[in-house]
């Protein structure tokens, strides 16, 4: 589809480049400029739900961890409701202590990324489909990525819900569905989901054209 029937064409994407942190995570770039900073702490002190950490690495096609990746996470609250006017699900309340969005960069030394959040509830699927299993949406940008990559992380302790999930079931090769599973573990009494993302190779993560 070369020519859109819409009135205007979307603005083209360009790579976020190596210095994305200046604009989006200035503390990681090495300076302090804004009074209020966005961060990887998605759950505040009053947020309802099970506290979890989501962490992992992003690997390039040579198997090396990418240490200048920026990730954003968007998710529903513990009841499975998005804090957005388009979410008109009945019987699920907004949590005033939770927006459900955060951003972080992989560590310049270790390559590890971390989000502190809560486990989301299940959200309705498209009309005619089953409810979606709990999941978070992720968006990745960096140097060398010409247009942001969209994926989802599901929870490996939700095997029943995952087996019925309308999005996971769309993926043609069942083995590839496993690339979207975060793996539950614990450390120092905290629940940690490990979610590694592979841009290429035998374990290439499923990325979505949303």
């Amino acid at each position, binding site marked *: *589809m070369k020519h*859109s029937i*819409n*009135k*205007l*064409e*979307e*603005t*083209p994407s*360009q*790579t*976020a480049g*190596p*210095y*994305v*942190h*200046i*604009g*989006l995570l*200035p503390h990681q*770039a090495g300076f302090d400029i*804004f009074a*209020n900073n966005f961060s990887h702490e998605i759950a505040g002190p009053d947020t309802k739900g099970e506290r979890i950490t989501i962490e992992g690495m992003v690997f*390039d*096609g040579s198997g090396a961890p*990418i240490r200048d990746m920026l990730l*954003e996470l*968007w998710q529903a609250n513990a009841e499975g409701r*998005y804090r*957005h006017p*388009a*979410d*008109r*699900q*009945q019987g699920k309340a907004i949590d005033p202590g939770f927006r*459900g*969005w955060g951003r972080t960069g992989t560590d310049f030394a270790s390559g590890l990324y971390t989000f502190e959040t809560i486990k989301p509830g299940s*959200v*309705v*699927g*498209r*009309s005619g489909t089953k409810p979606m299993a709990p999941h978070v949406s992720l*968006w990745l940008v*960096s*140097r*060398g*990525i*010409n*247009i*942001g*990559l969209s994926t989802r992380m599901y929870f490996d302790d939700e095997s029943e819900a995952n087996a019925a999930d309308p*999005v996971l079931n769309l*993926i043609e090769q069942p083995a*590839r569905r496993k690339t979207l599973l975060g793996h539950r573990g614990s450390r120092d009494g905290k629940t940690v989901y490990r979610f590694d993302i592979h841009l*290429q190779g035998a374990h*290439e993560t499923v*990325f*979505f*054209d*949303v």
Partner: protein
Amino acid sequence: MADEYGEFYQRNRDIHPPALTPTYKTSVLRSPRIPLWSLQNSLSEVTGPVFTPDELGPLDHDLIKNYAHTGDPVGERTIIHGQVLDEDARPQAGVLVEIWQANAGGRYRHVNDRYFAPIDPNFGGCGRTLTDAEGRYWFRTVKPGVYPFRNYINSWRPAHVHFSIFGSGFAQRLITQMYFEGDPMIRHDAIAQTIADPAAIDRLVAKLDLNASIPLDSVAYRFDIVLRGRRATMFENKLQGN
């Protein structure tokens, strides 16, 4: 008619750079090899974070003043402004626009930037704002310099400002770069040229806007931004719960 909260039009990937663009070398190891899995929108894609004016500071949009310690930063005093629209030309209000850039000498304030052009003590190099009711935004800054990058040994970036834009849904999320009208470096730039369509590259080039300039003070450039539009919500594609 478009729905305020409807699904997004399918992204026209022809006007975007592909993931794999070997002349921009870093893309080779960072581009997925398996085609993207096309996903019809659910609530997870049509919703997204909402930002409010109280989250931003009064100087966040003013790069001449937001890191000034001993005086104003060095460089050409520049206004960058424009309107955020969707594909149906509807103004997008309340959109968070974040920018970052090099200083007038082409140096970034970043721990990983080793270029020997000096840091400007009065320039942070980032700003952010929310669009107004008509989708308009406005930044004041200094024009960034060109800088070298290790693609080929003589690769230079044109003067550019990085833009990050949120729409009203997470599937509209966009990062891009804005260039300046008349810059001969654009046609030699490996990153701008990842976009195949010259007309699409030209839409990243801000146009000199003398009428928006402040006489005897700052010269203005205009850069309008288009985000994906939303489809009418028809019965067949209606989301559950609506």
